[in-house]
């Protein structure tokens, strides 16, 4: 039998050569016809017919590249070549869904972010205006097999792969190809299989979109454009990309993202346009498992787990963040958790740098709790089902393509080898059947001397005593073996032997250093005993398997138990009501079920927890009218004069530590604004600082929608360098014309829309139209009086009000005009001298505006400053002598009014949301600290509890650092410490959402 297998290998190799270029039907034939049946029977194997159907001692019969029959007790036709696979395993081969195998490589655009702005696509032809929309790309058109990569993928069990160009926002269609060595005509199993999308613009050198929210908007607009093109658009323009986009909609839609929040974003987008995506995630899905489960999308997940960190230098170890340590520990359990939650998912090998590591990672996944059955499912039947090719591949049922692997044992077991990878009925040898396992102890007899030869994993050495080893160089080739070694540790001469393997023993001849020709033998004695230490290691390892707790968000200071609304009675506080009651000394406030129930003195509330607030101050939570925290990947889509279509609401980042830090400064609500890089910026998001909740859950319910406008130097790109001299506008004169133009066009757009005629929905103009209609409100970044006045006049002409001027450092010069127009002013307390347009900024600005009757607020525009807006409010007392009570309203009630949420927040009044802060002192004092901060009656910050949190962080870090050190000690590969820089967004920051 063994001999047969040996011969078989040669046969396979031969067959392989002959058959490769033989079968292309449409090609002319140079030579003699040589069509073969490829009729094989594989007998006595353990066969996984599918992930959940396993047959022992079974037979697989294939013919002409297809499965004929699988079962036990089958009659084997005489025309079959029979291969006895006793003790071996057969699995359907794996299917890769995320790959660019065989497609041209993409080079990142070197120009992007530098040089002159590129407003339109550089792709020649009747394609999309945007270079990142490449729906017309059809992978099959560009596929060229790559023997080296195919061999790599076959070596780890893959038989077919769905290929697409990993480049752009719409990446066009994919093709399903076999990993065999054949002509392309035979390798492509199926033409356009799926439409691939992402948020990343890839190699596009065009500026738009520069932010994540821009990518999202571009997709939204493209869904609308597709519909429009189908109905009437095709009569107006010939657009290859849009036509292709429409064609692709009938296919499965695969969305490539990098992390858990992007999964939720893709899901939200899909919901809006009625698309259920298959989402390729980043492997951190366990961190937002419930929400991802609820979204109902199927996933493709990577298993490229992070390496342990090298933390031998405690200084460096300081820079490793808890989230990364925990992810290192928890990532291998991601698949298990997804399976546990009942989420349908496939596994991809994408992201694993050395493909050979794939099986190790896969086994790690199984060791971390994913059942073998689920693991196999994620590599075979699920991917086939997801892309609608279950009739072709994914299991070994009659009629399906004969794609399968033969392994030495259960593939999920350590050291299981893949012998063969059969693709469409043709074999590819990975590791021959006849590779011997010679592990064991031997008596090696050479020239009357006996050596203690040990063989482990085909490496040999001679054990001299407990501590001394002599290396033996060896090679095993089929039944032949050769070895050479020095008889003593320090000897110079070598003994060279060669021989053959017979049963478990080795025999042969060789030469000594003196040239004598001798015989030798090595008698197998016993297996090498595993030392007890290994068992100990195993126990220890099992112990280490126990992991720390989840945290929400997945960041230090995240909570593990979801906080809930409390029933609390604050007693004897100085209560800053911001209402007609003013400041109540010795006041009581009762909060329950998220609301303020009662405000007064000598209150009692049965069942409420009493907090003695004697000597302390209780206020409404701070509201930051101008914030850029909690935003993912880009605060500006400043590539065009208007980006009214983009929305911060699409990119709220619930996992920003600044949320927690600002809760510690008493902030409870923040308006997250688009930046100020263009006259008409993007739509804003209003959030409550519900730490640990999801982006959707953080949003202020039913709040009026706002949009950011901007004036002055940022908009004119005055300080952007000499390259930025192209985009209109470059002067204040031009800024006025941008507004005039947009409002005029939006009005016309509105008329067209309501006329019942066909029109192209335009998200940019929709948002501007909402302003005219009084459904959307402006917060306008502004400095100098001239342009402030200008915008109010533009608004007057178009019949709406500018809701808020933000920054508004020269508001004091036009306070009377602002009052007349009805605009509010949200300013900085004392910033100036950073650019020319703030040369006349004065810290008394707030005081004058307030005095003149402008609704006035102080904002932060800065993640750090927002932690101490209470101190900023106090500067209105210092500069301009505003009363303390009124100054306090600058950061609470007044911004609430500007944001139209004063019916819910901004003061302490029965019926309002329990968004309140307990301060150690007068909140305007530099010495005051927020001790507790509540949002909706939920205590999200408590200074005393924060001390406990610190201890927990310290403990958890210490545990994980120890675990990393142990891992390194045991030889695990490690990665160097990297330091995250969190860029804090300000108004004029341009991000570039490029290829990842």
């Amino acid at each position, binding site marked *: 039998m063994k001999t047969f297998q040996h011969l078989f290998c040669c046969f396979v190799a031969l067959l392989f050569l002959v058959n490769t270029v033989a079968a292309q039907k449409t090609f002319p034939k140079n030579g003699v016809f040589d069509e073969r049946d490829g009729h094989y029977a594989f007998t006595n194997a353990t066969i996984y017919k599918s992930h959940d159907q396993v047959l022992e001692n079974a037979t697989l019969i294939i013919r002409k590249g297809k499965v004929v029959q699988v079962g036990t007790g089958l009659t084997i036709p005489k025309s079959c070549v029979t291969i006895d696979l006793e003790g071996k395993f057969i699995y359907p081969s794996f299917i890769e869904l995320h790959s660019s195998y065989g497609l041209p490589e993409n080079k990142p655009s070197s120009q992007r*972010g530098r040089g002159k702005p590129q407003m339109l696509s550089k792709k020649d032809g009747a394609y999309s205006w945007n270079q990142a929309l490449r729906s017309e790309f059809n992978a099959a058109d560009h596929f060229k097999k790559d023997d080296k990569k195919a061999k790599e993928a076959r070596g780890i069990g893959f038989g077919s792969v769905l290929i697409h160009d990993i480049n752009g926002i719409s990446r066009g269609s994919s093709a399903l190809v076999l990993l065999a060595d054949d002509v392309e005509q035979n390798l492509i199993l199926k033409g356009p299989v799926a439409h691939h999308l992402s948020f990343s613009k890839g190699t596009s050198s065009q500026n738009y979109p520069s932010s994540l929210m821009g990518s999202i908007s571009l997709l939204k607009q493209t869904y609308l454009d597709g519909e429009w093109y189908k109905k009437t658009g095709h009569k107006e323009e010939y657009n290859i990309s849009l036509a292709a986009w429409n064609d692709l909609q009938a296919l499965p839609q695969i969305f490539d993202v990098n992390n858990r929040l992007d999964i939720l974003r893709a899901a939200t987008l899909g919901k809006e346009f009625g698309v259920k995506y298959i989402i390729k995630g980043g492997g951190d899905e366990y961190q937002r498992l419930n929400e991802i489960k609820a979204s109902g999308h199927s996933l493709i997940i990577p298993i490229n787990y992070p390496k342990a960190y090298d933390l031998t230098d405690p*200084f460096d170890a*300081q*820079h490793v*963040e*808890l989230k990364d340590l925990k992810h290192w520990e928890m990532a291998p359990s991601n698949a298990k958790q997804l399976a546990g939650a009942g989420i349908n998912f496939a596994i991809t090998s994408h992201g694993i740098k050395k493909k050979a590591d794939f099986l190790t990672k896969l086994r790690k996944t199984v060791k971390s709790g994913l059942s073998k059955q689920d693991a196999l499912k994620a590599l075979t039947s699920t991917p086939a089902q997801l892309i609608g090719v279950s009739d072709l591949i994914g299991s070994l049922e009659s009629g399906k393509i004969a794609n399968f692997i033969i392994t030495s044992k259960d593939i999920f077991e350590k050291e299981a080898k893949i012998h063969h990878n059969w693709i469409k009925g043709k074999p590819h040898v990975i590791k021959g059947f006849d590779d011997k396992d010679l592990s064991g102890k031997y008596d090696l007899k050479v020239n009357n001397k006996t050596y203690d030869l040990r063989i482990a994993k085909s490496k040999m050495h001679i054990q001299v005593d407990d501590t001394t080893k002599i290396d033996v160089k060896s090679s095993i080739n089929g039944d032949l073996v050769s070895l050479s070694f020095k008889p003593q540790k320090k000897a110079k001469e070598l003994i060279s032997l060669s021989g053959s393997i017979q049963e478990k023993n080795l025999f042969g001849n060789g030469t000594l250093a003196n040239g004598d020709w001798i015989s030798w033998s090595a008698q197998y004695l016993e297996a090498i005993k595993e030392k007890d230490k290994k068992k100990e290691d195993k126990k220890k390892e099992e112990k280490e398997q126990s992991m720390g707790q989840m945290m929400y968000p997945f*960041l*230090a*200071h995240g909570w593990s138990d979801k906080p809930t609304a409390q029933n609390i009675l604050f007693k004897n506080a100085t209560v800053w009501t911001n209402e007609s009651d003013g400041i109540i000394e010795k006041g009581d406030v009762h909060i329950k079920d998220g609301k303020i129930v009662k405000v007064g003195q000598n209150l009692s509330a049965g069942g409420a927890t009493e907090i003695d607030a004697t000597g302390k101050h209780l206020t409404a939570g701070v509201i930051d009218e101008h914030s850029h925290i909690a935003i993912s990947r880009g605060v500006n889509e400043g590539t065009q004069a208007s980006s009214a279509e983009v929305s911060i609401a699409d990119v709220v980042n619930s996992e920003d*530590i*600044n949320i*927690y*830090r600002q809760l*510690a400064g008493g902030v409870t609500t923040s308006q997250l604004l688009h930046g100020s890089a263009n006259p008409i910026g993007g739509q804003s998001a209003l959030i409550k600082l519900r730490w640990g909740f999801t982006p959707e859950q953080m949003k202020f319910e039913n709040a009026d929608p706002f949009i950011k406008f901007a004036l002055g*130097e940022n908009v004119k790109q*005055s300080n952007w360098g000499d390259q930025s001299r192209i985009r209109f506008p470059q002067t204040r004169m031009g800024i006025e014309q941008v507004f005039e133009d947009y409002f005029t066009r939006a009005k016309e757009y509105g008329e067209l829309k309501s006329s019942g005629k066909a029109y192209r929905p335009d998200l940019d103009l929709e948002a501007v139209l909402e302003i005219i209609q009084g459904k959307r409100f402006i917060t306008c970044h502004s400095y100098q009086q001239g342009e402030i006045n200008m915008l109010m006049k533009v608004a007057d002409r178009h019949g709406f009000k500018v809701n808020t001027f933000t920054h508004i450092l020269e508001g*004091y*010069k036009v*306070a*009377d005009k602002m009052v007349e127009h009805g605009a509010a002013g949200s300013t900085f307390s*004392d*910033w100036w*001298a*950073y*650019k*020319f347009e703030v040369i*006349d900024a*004065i810290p*008394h600005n707030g005081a*004058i505006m307030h*005095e003149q009757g402008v609704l006035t607020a102080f904002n932060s525009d800065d993640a*750090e*400053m927002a932690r*101490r807006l209470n*101190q900023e409010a*106090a500067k209105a*007392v*210092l*500069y301009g002598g505003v009363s303390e009570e009124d100054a306090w309203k600058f950061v609470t009630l007044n911004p609430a009014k500007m944001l139209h949420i004063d019916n819910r927040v901004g003061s302490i009044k029965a019926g309002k949301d329990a968004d309140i802060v307990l301060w*150690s*002192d007068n909140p*305007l*004092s*530099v*010495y005051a*600290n927020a001790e507790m901060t509540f949002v909706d009656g939920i205590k999200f910050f408590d200074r005393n509890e924060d001390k406990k949190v*610190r201890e927990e*962080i310290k403990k958890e*870090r210490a545990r994980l650092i120890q675990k990393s050190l142990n891992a390194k000690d045991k030889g695990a590969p490690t990665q*160097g410490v*990297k*330091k*995250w*820089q969190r*860029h*804090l967004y300000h108004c004029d*920051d*341009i*991000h*570039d959402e490029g290829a990842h």
Partner: protein
Amino acid sequence: MRNIFTLFLLTLCSFSYAQQTPAPQQSEAIMITGATVHIGNGQTILSGNVGFENGKITFVGDGRSMQPSDTKNYKIIKADGKHVYPGFIVPSNQLGLVEIDAVRSTNDKREVGNFNPNVRSIIAYNTDSKVTPTIRSNGILLAQISPEGGRISGQSSIVELDAWNWEDAAYKADDAIHLNWPTVFKRRWWRSTAPAAKNDDYDKQTEEINSFFKEAYAYSQTSASVKNLKFEAMRGLFDGSKNLFVHTHGAKEITAAVLMLKKLGVTPVVFGGRDSWMITDFLKQNNISIILRQMHNLPRNPDTDIDQPFKTPAMLAEAGVLFAISADQDHGGLRNLPFQAGHAVGFGLSKEDALKAITSNTAKILKIDKTVGSLETGKDATLFISAGDALDMRTCIVEQAFIRGKEIDLDNKQKALYRKFSNKYKSK
């Protein structure tokens, strides 16, 4: 053309608003009476009197024990219920080197080149900056003006914030050389969202410093026939006449900098010092003082205690490390220095220790404590009267300020604009 335009606008502005004229010499002896006197060394005197003549303090003590005859030669300033403080000192900043950050022509902060110890900030210090009067009206009366950028940015000078010209302003010229220590981790492009790896050039960069200092030292031991301006400038470091400020934040960087510089015979002042709280024993052993510029920076990373920057001063005080606080803002925000010190009080630092961190400790570290930094007889009468607690923005109302006895003009451009537009609305 644009430069001319900017110049024109600036000129226009300077005509539109009141100029603060530098004060004349103190002509008569002055006694401030009945105030809470904050000495600046940790002590306070309730109902205290402070007398000064010819620019020097002649009396500090309890006013209640004084007889009318003791004060008869003084002009009396009654300050009952008010507070007297030594003038605040703001170390290492670019006041007067830049007017408007975004306008290049107004920016003289950074010279080209990596090792520029010979570059002197004092000659570029603009005594007519419109920003300066807004700073001193919050009690900041002295500043150390330093260039920035490069490995060695150049030399700072300590100036009084009331002067006709830079010569006039110089309180201690060329007092320190400023060295920017390399960082262990790479600095990524600010738009980058990827984490920063180790700085592969770190060792090379520190070695450059090492050899520069070694050569400078060797040079300082001779009178060179061929003058090297860079090494000439370094001489003061080796004879102790100049301070070395090493600008760095990380614990590892601070440790490495101190160890290397000490070997080179220089005891540096650490400026920045974000992580100094982690290595207080080391700092004490090596007699290193710290100037914190981190009060209003965010904590290092999400794992760090959320209030770490606020409590670092208290931790240094507790450990007995000599430290001062610098304003963690650009020139326009330097006026917040007292509030940044005050902010540390809510996190465990005593009020008088917070005051020391912007007065006497700063003077000690800058080596000007013989003449300023506290209210003691014989020292400069550089001080001010505030209606209330000057470390709290609610009450920091500076009513009168004196630099070496000269009563300075506390008006500024911003106050003038405030009056101008308040009047506009009043007259309406």
